[in-house]
C-alpha cells in the first residue's frame, strides 16, 4: 500500500488535498496543509448593481456600429453641425437602452437564479449531526447528505449510500440531457458508514487533480486512516457525483465536497461557444465598408469643393451672411476639419443604426417560424425544432457541403437484434409476428445444420457471454399512475437502459433466444436460462468500452468457481487477439452482414486461472491507482489482459434508416449540396447505409482511399491514380459524351477511412509534398458527388470540416449529428445541427439548430433556409438602397446651397425616416415574404441552386441597387429642382421655401421606397397591406400633425404648415405622382425584361405556378372563360406572329391549349 502511495506524487502542483470533515491527518503520515478553495457560490451573472451601467455601456460600445454612432453623436455635440444631436442621439439612445434593459433583465434573472441556487439549503454533517446550511456556504471537505431527487450542490465523492452495495443512481439530464440512470459507486472502504455518526468518524484525505472541464474524466486517490494506517484507494469518475446531476432511486447518500462553486465541472463547462457569423453578415460588413468609403468620399469632395467655391470672399461671406468674429478667427485647417465632420454628420444616415436593429429583430423573430413549424414536429418524440442561435438563419440557405453522421442521424439508432452466428451456425430469433413480439418466445430458427452437443456448450457460452458482457442496467421499477409496481421478473414491465443502444438490442435479443439478464445484485449478475433457472455470476471487473480499443470486457466468476473473461467488440479489434475458434466462418458471416448494412460485433472469451486473475487484478489496480496518465496505464493494462481470446461468434444488429432519409439526401443532392457521411462505423456497414440512403447510386463509381489500398500502393500513388481517374473522366466529358450508358456522366463516390485521412492530413516532413496531398485530396473530393469517411474519430470529423472550410472556394458547411462524437464537427461547421436522438443531448446543446429527425433537414434548408436568405438579402440591399435614396439628394443639394451643409429635410424627417416611416414594411417583408410557395420549394430542390454562393448579395446586384438608389435620388431631387426653379407653385401666387422643397423630395422619397418594396413583395397577406399602407398613412398623418402646431418646446417652427401648403398646391400633387412613377419605372422594366429574356429557375417557377393555379383551382366556368381568352389571345398573337414571320410563338400557344 505504501508503494501505491508513491505512484502519483511526482507532481503536486496539479492536485489538491481534501481533508474529509476538515480533520487533520494523523501525525506522522503527512503534513497538514490547509489549502484555500473558493466557497460554493455560483456566479453566472455578468454585472452587479454598481458596475452595470459602465460595464454594459463598455460592452455595447465595443461593437463597431455602436461606436461609430457614438462618435457621430459626440461630433454633433461638440461642433456646430447641420443636424441636431437628437437626430442621431435618439436612435442610438433607443438602441442602447433597449439592449441594456434586455441585458439587465437577463442578468437580473441570472442573479435571481444564482441566489436561489446559492441559498438553497443543503445538509451537512458536522460533529455527528446533520446541519442545514446555505448552499453557498458549503466548503471543500464538508460531508454532505443528499436525499433522493435532490440535486448535488457541488462535485462530490460518494462515501456511502443507503443501498447496501454502496451504489447510487444518478441522472445527468440537466448536464448532458441523458435521462438514463447511471450507477455511481461509493469508495469500497467507506460504503459501510451510512449514518451521520459513522460518516463523521471517517478519517481520510483525498488527493485529486485540480478541476477540469471534462465531465467524464476524473482521477484521484483517497487515503483512509484506519488505526493510523493509511489505506489508499483509487478514485475515478465512477465515484464522482457532479453538480447539477440528480440522485435517483436511492434514499440518501453521504458524500464529500471536492470541487465547489465556480470550480465545479458544470461551472467550468459554461464557457460560451465561439460566435459564428453568417455569409450574409460578412457581405453586409463589406457593404458597410463601401458605404463608409462613399460617406467619407462624399464628405471629402464636398469639403474640397466648398473651399474652392469659397475662394471668392463675396461668396464666402457676402454682406447678408457674415460670420461671427470667433468663427472668423478660427484657423482654416480647423475650419476645414469641422466642415468635413459636419458633412460626415449630414450624410451619416447612409449607414443607419436602424439596420442593425432591424436585422437583429428579423433574425430573432424570424427564428420563431422554425420553432413553430408543424412539419418539423415529431409526434413520436414529442419534440419540435429548437433554435439555439438565430444569427445563422440565412446561412441555412447557403449550404454547399453537408456533413452528416451516420448512426442516429441517417439511421434510426433503434437497434434491432437480427441474428447471431456461433461458430458459423446462424441463429435468428423469429419472434416478430405481425409486428408483435410473441410473449415468452424462446424458439429459434436454425438456418444452418443443427449443432452437435459440443457446439451446444459453445453456443450457451456465447449467449451467456452476451448476457454478461455489457453495462446495461435493468430499470427495476416503473411508476404507472403514481403507483409503484414491483419488479416482474422476466416480464415486460422491467426494461433495459444503457448508454449504448447496441447493448440493449443484444441483451434483448438474448432474451428472445432464451437467456434473460435479470439484474446486477451484490456484484452478482443474474441470468435466467432456458430452463428457467437463475444462474449467478460474480462480476469481478469491467473493462469499459472506449472508442480507441473498440471493445469491452468483463471478468466474471461462475457459480462453479470458474473465471471467465468475456470480450465483445468490433471485428477488427477482436480478430487479431483471437487464438482459436472458427475464425474463417465467422469472418465470412461478419463481412456478409456488414455488406447488408448491419452492425456487427464479435464475441470472444478467455478462461482465466486464478493465478492469471491475480495478475489481472494486480495490473488493473496498479493502473487505477495512478494519479498521472491513468488512462494510458489502463489502456496498457487492458491491452495485456484482452489477449489469447477464443472466438465464440458474432452478432448482427440492424440500425434501420431513418424515415425519408434517402429522399432527403436525394433532395440535398438535387439542391446542389455535396453530402458527406462521416462515421466511426466500419467501411462495409457505412457503405451499405450509403447505398440504402441513395448517397451512392447504382451507377456511382466508387473510389477507395483506404488502408487496404494504401498498404498495396503508397499513398502518393493512390492519390495520383484517383485524381487521374477523376480528371480524365471530366476531361473526356467535355470532348465527347462517351458515357452513353448512364446518359449523364458517371458520378464518383469516394470512400476514405480515418487512418488514410490522417495520413493525407499529416503535416508531412517534406512540406511541399503534404501540401500537395491535401490539394489532390480536395481536388478528388470536389469531383465526387458523395464522400464517405468511415472509421473516423470525433476530432477527425472536425478536421475534415475544417479542411473543406479552408479550401479555396470557402464553401458553407453544415454538420449534422446526434451524438457526443459529433459535437466537434457541429461546432466547427458554419452551421451545426443537432438531432434529438438517443445518444443524449450533447449534440443538441452544442448545435445552432436542433431538429427531431434527419428528414426535417429538407424543410429546414430548402424552405426555411431559402426564405431566410432571400428575406435577409432583400433586407440588406433594400436598407442600403433606401438610404442612398435618402441621403443622395442631400448631397446634391450641397451644390445648390454653397456647400454649407444645409440639410434638405427637417430634423424630424431625418430622425424618423429610418425609425418609423420606412422601417416596418421591410421588417415585415423580411419576416413573411415568400417568393415561391413553400410546397414548390420542397418539391423542386433545384431552386436552392438559384441562391447558392450568396448570389443575391453579389457585387453586381449590390451595385445595381446602389445605382437604382442614386437614380431615384436624382429623379427626386432634380424633379423637385426643376419644379421649383424660379417659378410659382400655387394658384394664389405665393411662394414656397426651402423646407417645402425638402418636404416635397421627402414625400416622393417615402412613397417611392415604400412602393419599391411593395413591387418586390410576392406575398401579400393582410399584414403586408396593413403595414405598407399603414406606414404611408402614418407618414402623412405625422406630417400634418408636425406642421399643424406651433410646437412650444422647439426653438424653430420651420415646418409650420409646410406640408399642408404643399398639399394645397395642384402641381405638387402632380409632380409627386410623376416623380414616383419615374422613380419606379426602370426597376419594373428591368425586372420584367430580365424575367422575359433571362429568367432564373425561380422566376420560371413563379410564372409556372400561376398557370397551375388556373389549372388546379379554376372552376369549369373560369377555365372555359380563360380558354376563350387564350384562344382569342393566341389568334391575335398568331396574326402578329405571321406579320413578323416568327414561328416560335405558335408553338407556345399550342401548348397553352394543351394545358387548358
Amino acid at each position, binding site marked *: 500500500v505504501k508503494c501505491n502511495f508513491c505512484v502519483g506524487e511526482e507532481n503536486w502542483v496539479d492536485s489538491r488535498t481534501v481533508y474529509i470533515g476538515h480533520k487533520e491527518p494523523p501525525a506522522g503520515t503527512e503534513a497538514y496543509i490547509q489549502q484555500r478553495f473558493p466557497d460554493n457560490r455560483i456566479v453566472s451573472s455578468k454585472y452587479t448593481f454598481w458596475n452595470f451601467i459602465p460595464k454594459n455601456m463598455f460592452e455595447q460600445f465595443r461593437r463597431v456600429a455602436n461606436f461609430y454612432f457614438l462618435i457621430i453623436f459626440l461630433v454633433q455635440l461638440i461642433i456646430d453641425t447641420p443636424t441636431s444631436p437628437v437626430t442621431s442621439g435618439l436612435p442610438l439612445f433607443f438602441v442602447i437602452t433597449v439592449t441594456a434593459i434586455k441585458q439587465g433583465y437577463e442578468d437580473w434573472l441570472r442573479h435571481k437564479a444564482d441566489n436561489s441556487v446559492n441559498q438553497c439549503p443543503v445538509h451537512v454533517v458536522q460533529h455527528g449531526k446533520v446541519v442545514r446550511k446555505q448552499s453557498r456556504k458549503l466548503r471543500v471537505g464538508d460531508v454532505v447528505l443528499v436525499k433522493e431527487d435532490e440535486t448535488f450542490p457541488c462535485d462530490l465523492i460518494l462515501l456511502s449510500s443507503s443501498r447496501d452495495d454502496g451504489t447510487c443512481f444518478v441522472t445527468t439530464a440537466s448536464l448532458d440531457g441523458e435521462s438514463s440512470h447511471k450507477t455511481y459507486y461509493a469508495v469500497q472502504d467507506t460504503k459501510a458508514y451510512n449514518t451521520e455518526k459513522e460518516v463523521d468518524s471517517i478519517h481520510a484525505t483525498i488527493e485529486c487533480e485540480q478541476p477540469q472541464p471534462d465531465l467524464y474524466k476524473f482521477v484521484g486517490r483517497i487515503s483512509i486512516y484506519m488505526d493510523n494506517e493509511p489505506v489508499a484507494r483509487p478514485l475515478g469518475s465512477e465515484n464522482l457525483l457532479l453538480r447539477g446531476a440528480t440522485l435517483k432511486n436511492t434514499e440518501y447518500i453521504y458524500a464529500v465536497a471536492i470541487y465547489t462553486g465556480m470550480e465545479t465541472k458544470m461551472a467550468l463547462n459554461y464557457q460560451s461557444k465561439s460566435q459564428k457569423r453568417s455569409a450574409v453578415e460578412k457581405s453586409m460588413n463589406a457593404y458597410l465598408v463601401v458605404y463608409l468609403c462613399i460617406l467619407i468620399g462624399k464628405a471629402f469632395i464636398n469639403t474640397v469643393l466648398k473651399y474652392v467655391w469659397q475662394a471668392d470672399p463675396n461668396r464666402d461671406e457676402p454682406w447678408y451672411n457674415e460670420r461671427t468674429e470667433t468663427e472668423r478667427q478660427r484657423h482654416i485647417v480647423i475650419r476645414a476639419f469641422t466642415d468635413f465632420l459636419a458633412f460626415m454628420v449630414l450624410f451619416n444616415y447612409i449607414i443607419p443604426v436602424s439596420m442593425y436593429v432591424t436585422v437583429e429583430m428579423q433574425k430573432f423573430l424570424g427564428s420563431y417560424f422554425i420553432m413553430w413549424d408543424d412539419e418539423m414536429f415529431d409526434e413520436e418524440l414529442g419534440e419540435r425544432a429548437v433554435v439555439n442561435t438565430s444569427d445563422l438563419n440565412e446561412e441555412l440557405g447557403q449550404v454547399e457541403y453537408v456533413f452528416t453522421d451516420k448512426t442516429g442521424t441517417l439511421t434510426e439508432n433503434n437497434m434491432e437484434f437480427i441474428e447471431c452466428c456461433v461458430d458459423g451456425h446462424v441463429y435468428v430469433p423469429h419472434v416478430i409476428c405481425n409486428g408483435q413480439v410473441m410473449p415468452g418466445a424462446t424458439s429459434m430458427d436454425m438456418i444452418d445444420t443443427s449443432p452437435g452437443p459440443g457446439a451446444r456448450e459453445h453456443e450457451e457460452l456465447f449467449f451467456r457471454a452476451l448476457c454478461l458482457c455489457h453495462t446495461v442496467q435493468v430499470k427495476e421499477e416503473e411508476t404507472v399512475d403514481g403507483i409503484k409496481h414491483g419488479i416482474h421478473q422476466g416480464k415486460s414491465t422491467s426494461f433495459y437502459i444503457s448508454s449504448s443502444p447496441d447493448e440493449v438490442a443484444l441483451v434483448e435479443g438474448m432474451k428472445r433466444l432464451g437467456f434473460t439478464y435479470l439484474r446486477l445484485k451484490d456484484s452478482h449478475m443474474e441470468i435466467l436460462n432456458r430452463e428457467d433457472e437463475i444462474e449467478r455470476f460474480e462480476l469481478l471487473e469491467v473493462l469499459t468500452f472506449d472508442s480507441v480499443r473498440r471493445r469491452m470486457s468483463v471478468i466474471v466468476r461462475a457459480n462453479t468457481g470458474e473465471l471467465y473473461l468475456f470480450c465483445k467488440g468490433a471485428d477488427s479489434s477482436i480478430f487479431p487477439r483471437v487464438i482459436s475458434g472458427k475464425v474463417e466462418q465467422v469472418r465470412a458471416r461478419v463481412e456478409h452482414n456488414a455488406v447488408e448494412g448491419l452492425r456487427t460485433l464479435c464475441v470472444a472469451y478467455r478462461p482465466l486461472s486464478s493465478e492469471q486473475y491475480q495478475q489481472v487484478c494486480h495490473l488493473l489496480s496498479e493502473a487505477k491507482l495512478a494519479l498521472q496518465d491513468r488512462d494510458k496505464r489502463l489502456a496498457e493494462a487492458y491491452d495485456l489482459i484482452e489477449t489469447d481470446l477464443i472466438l465464440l461468434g458474432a452478432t448482427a444488429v440492424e440500425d434501420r434508416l431513418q424515415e425519408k432519409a434517402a429522399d432527403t439526401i436525394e433532395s440535398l443532392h438535387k439542391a446542389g449540396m455535396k453530402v458527406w457521411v462521416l462515421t466511426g462505423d466500419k467501411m462495409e456497414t457505412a457503405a451499405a447505409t450509403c447505398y440504402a440512403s441513395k448517397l451512392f447510386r447504382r451507377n456511382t463509381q466508387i473510389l477507395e482511399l483506404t488502408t487496404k489500398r494504401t498498404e498495396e500502393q503508397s499513398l502518393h500513388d493512390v492519390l495520383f491514380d484517383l485524381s487521374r481517374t477523376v480528371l480524365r473522366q471530366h476531361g473526356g466529358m467535355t470532348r465527347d459524351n462517351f458515357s452513353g450508358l448512364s446518359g449523364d456522366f458517371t458520378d464518383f463516390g469516394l470512400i476514405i477511412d480515418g487512418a488514410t485521412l490522417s495520413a493525407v492530413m499529416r503535416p508531412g516532413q517534406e512540406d511541399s509534398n503534404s501540401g500537395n496531398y491535401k490539394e489532390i485530396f480536395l481536388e478528388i473530393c470536389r469531383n465526387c458527388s458523395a464522400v464517405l469517411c468511415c472509421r473516423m474519430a470525433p476530432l477527425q470529423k472536425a478536421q475534415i470540416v475544417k479542411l473543406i472550410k479552408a479550401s479555396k472556394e470557402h464553401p458553407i458547411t453544415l454538420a449534422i449529428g446526434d451524438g457526443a462524437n459529433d459535437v466537434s464537427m457541429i461546432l466547427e461547421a458554419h452551421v451545426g445541427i443537432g438531432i434529438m436522438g438517443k445518444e443524449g443531448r450533447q449534440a443538441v446543446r452544442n448545435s445552432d439548430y436542433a431538429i427531431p429527425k434527419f428528414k426535417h433537414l429538407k424543410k429546414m434548408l430548402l424552405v426555411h433556409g431559402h426564405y431566410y436568405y432571400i428575406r435577409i438579402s432583400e433586407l440588406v440591399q433594400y436598407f442600403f438602397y433606401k438610404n442612398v435614396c435618402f441621403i443622395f439628394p442631400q448631397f446634391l443639394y450641397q451644390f445648390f*446651397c454653397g456647400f454649407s451643409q444645409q440639410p434638405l429635410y427637417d430634423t424630424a424627417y431625418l430622425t424618423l425616416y429610418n425609425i418609423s416611416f420606412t422601417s416596418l414594411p421591410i421588417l415585415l417583408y423580411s419576416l413573411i415574404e*415568400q417568393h415561391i410557395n413553400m410546397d414548390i420549394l420542397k418539391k423542386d430542390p433545384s431552386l436552392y441552386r438559384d441562391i447558392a454562393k450568396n448570389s443575391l448579395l453579389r457585387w453586381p446586384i449590390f451595385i445595381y441597387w446602389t445605382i437604382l438608389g442614386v437614380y431615384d435620388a436624382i429623379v427626386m431631387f432634380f424633379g423637385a429642382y426643376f419644379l421649383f426653379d424660379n*417659378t*410659382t407653385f400655387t394658384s394664389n*401666387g405665393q411662394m414656397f*421655401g426651402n423646407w417645402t422643397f425638402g418636404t416635397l423630395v421627402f414625400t416622393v422619397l417615402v412613397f417611392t421606397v415604400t412602393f419599391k418594396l411593395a413591387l418586390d413583395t410576392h406575398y401579400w*397577406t393582410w399584414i403586408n397591406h396593413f403595414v405598407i399602407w399603414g406606414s404611408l398613412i402614418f407618414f402623412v398623418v405625422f406630417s400634418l400633425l408636425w406642421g399643424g402646431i406651433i410646437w412650444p418646446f422647439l426653438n424653430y417652427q420651420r415646418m409650420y404648415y409646410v406640408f399642408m401648403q404643399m398639399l394645397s398646391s395642384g402641381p405638387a400633387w402632380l409632380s409627386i405622382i410623376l416623380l414616383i412613377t419615374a422613380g419606379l419605372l426602370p426597376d419594373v422594366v428591368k425586372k420584367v425584361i430580365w424575367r422575359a429574356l433571362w429568367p432564373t429557375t425561380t422566376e420560371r417557377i413563379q410564372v409556372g405556378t400561376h398557370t397551375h393555379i388556373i389549372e388546379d383551382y379554376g372552376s369549369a366556368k373560369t377555365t372555359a372563360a380563360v380558354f376563350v381568352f387564350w384562344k382569342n389571345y393566341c389568334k391575335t398573337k398568331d396574326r402578329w406572329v405571321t406579320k413578323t414571320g416568327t414561328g416560335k410563338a405558335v408553338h407556345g400557344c399550342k401548348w397553352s391549349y394543351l394545358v387548358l
Partner: protein
Amino acid sequence: MIAAMMASSYNAKEEDGHHSGSSSHGGAGAVKSKKPDNTAFKQQRLPAWQPILTAGTVLPAFFVIGLIFIPIGIGLYVTSNNIKEFEVDYTGVDINSPCYSCAKNFSWNSTQSCVCSVNFTLEQPFESNVFMYYGLSNFYQNHRRYVKSRDDSQLNGDLSALMNPSKECEPYRTNDGLPIAPCGAIANSLFNDTLDLYYVDSNSTKTPIPLAKKGIAWWTDKHVKFRNPSGNTNLTVTFQGTTKPVNWRKPVYELDPSEADNNGFINEDFIVWMRTAALPTFRKLYRIIQKKSGTTPTLPSGRYILDITYNYPVLSFDGRKRMILSTISWMGGKNPFLGIAYITVGSICFFLGVVLLIIHHKYDTRNNSADIPN
C-alpha cells in the same frame, strides 16, 4: 398549471376541428404542449395575394399610364403656355441700363435713396390677376449659416426672446448692447427696394397701377407664426429697448406705418422674405395687381414704367435683381417642365409598353414551350 393544460388541450381540439388532416393524436400532455400551434400565421400559410411582375401583367399598366400621362402633360403644357409672364432685370450691370448709376454708387451710409426707372412694353394684355415678383439670383438664402440665423420665438411675439434673442442670430443678435429685433441674418438682409409700376397711355400720362401689398404671405404665417409682441398697437413702445437690424434704414415698427395689421413682425413683405428660398435663384411675391371689374385687362398691352427705389446691393456677390409680372393658373406660374415631364414619362411608358408587348410575345412563349418536357 391545470388551467394551462386545459387551455392547451382546448386548443388542440379546436385545431383538430379546423385541420382535419393534421394528425395530433397520441402523446401525453407534455407532448401536446411542445406541439406548435397550427395557426396559419405560425405555419407561414396565411392566405395571400401573390402578384408577379411579368411582361404580360405589366403591359396594361404601362399603356394605361401612358394614356393618362400624355393628356395630362399636354394639358399642363398648354396651360403653362397660356400663362403670361414678363421679366425685367434692373440690376444695372450694363452701363446703358437705367439703374447703372444707382448700382454703381451704392453706399450703405447714404441717406439719399437712389431712384431709377425702367421702361418696358407689354406686347399682350395680362388678363385676370397679375402677380408682381421680385427675383434675386446668386443669392444664397439657403446657406446653412443664413437659414438658421433667425429666432422664431422672437418672431412669434415672445417677449423674453425679443429682449434676449437666440444665439443662432449671431452675429446679428445685438448691436451696441441692444438686442436686435428682428434678429438674425435673414431679417437683416430684408429686400428693401421699392417697386412702383406706372402705365403710360398713348398721350404719355403716367397712371400709377394699384399694387396690393396684402395677401402675399401665407395666411398661417401672418396669423399664427408671426406675431407682434403684445398686440399690434403701440409698436414703438413694444419695441423699446431693441434696436433695428444693422442694414435696415428704419426700425421694424415703421415697416408699414399706414396699416397696423401690416406693421412690425406681421408685415407681409417681411414675412415673405423670412421664408427662405430653396435655391440660389428665386423669386418672391411682391405685390398683387387685382383684376379690375369689367372686361378691361388688368394690364393692357402698352408701355409701362417701373420706378425703383434702389436700396439693395447685389453686385458685390454678382447677384441679379429682376421684376417679374405673371398671371397664374390653377397650376401656378409658367412652368413648362411639368407638362414636358408628363409627356415624356407618358411616352416612355407607352413605348415600353410596346417593347414589352414584343418581348412578351417573342420570349414568354418560348420559355413556356421550353417548359413542356418538364
